[in-house]
């Protein structure tokens, strides 16, 4: 399991490839599901968003994500999982979050990946401040996944 909260830009596909190469035993995982959240240049009716700033609660964020991943691994018989989340200044088209889940079968990987990102979006202590053409604003709520577990 790998949980990282970092300021620097990351390449989600390279991260998944490297983690899989270094940590997953060969021939045991049949299904991998990866979610990547990328910054859009529009949100909640605001267009032309230039940047956003992501704040977090150092310590609690990592601890919360670890617990959620452990829960998911037990509940769905997941082999391994990984979460990378950026903080600090982020620009449109940059990745914000990566969730990767490896399991024997696809159903478990889909369920576990969705569970982790839904929990992350509703419970992990991160907050977005957007720089819109009309000034800065705290984003007040995340969109709900209608299929949230």
């Amino acid at each position: 399991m790998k949980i990282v909260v970092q300021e620097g830009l990351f390449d989600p596909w390279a991260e998944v490839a490297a983690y899989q190469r270094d940590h997953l035993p060969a021939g045991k995982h049949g299904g991998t599901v990866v979610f990547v959240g990328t910054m859009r240049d529009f949100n909640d009716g605001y267009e032309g968003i230039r940047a956003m700033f992501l704040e977090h609660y150092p310590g609690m964020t990592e601890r919360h994500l670890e617990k959620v991943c452990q829960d998911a691994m037990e509940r769905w018989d997941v082999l391994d999982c990984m979460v990378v989340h950026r903080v600090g200044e982020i620009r449109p088209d940059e990745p914000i979050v990566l969730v990767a889940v490896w399991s024997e079968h696809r159903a478990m990987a889909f369920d576990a990946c969705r569970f982790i990102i839904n929990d992350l979006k509703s419970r992990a202590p991160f907050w977005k401040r957007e720089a819109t053409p009309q000034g800065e604003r705290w984003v007040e709520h995340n969109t709900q996944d209608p299929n949230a577990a």
Partner: protein
Amino acid sequence: MKVKVKYFASMRDRMGKGDEELELQEGATIADLWQAVSQEVLPENTLVAVNMEYTDLSHPLKEGDEVAFFPPVTGG
């Protein structure tokens, strides 16, 4: 007893600071703590954590606890 208090995001803007230390009576709850730091009612959707675990306002505090107040989360 002494506790540490942290405010994040719009809650920090509202309080005008990111953290403080507070002297409270033994047995004080998070609701009591809030009354000690603000005249205003705690915004309805505010989340609270003690020692980095979610909890609620009735949680009784003890020496050295770290209490955090923050708005709904918006990561991901």
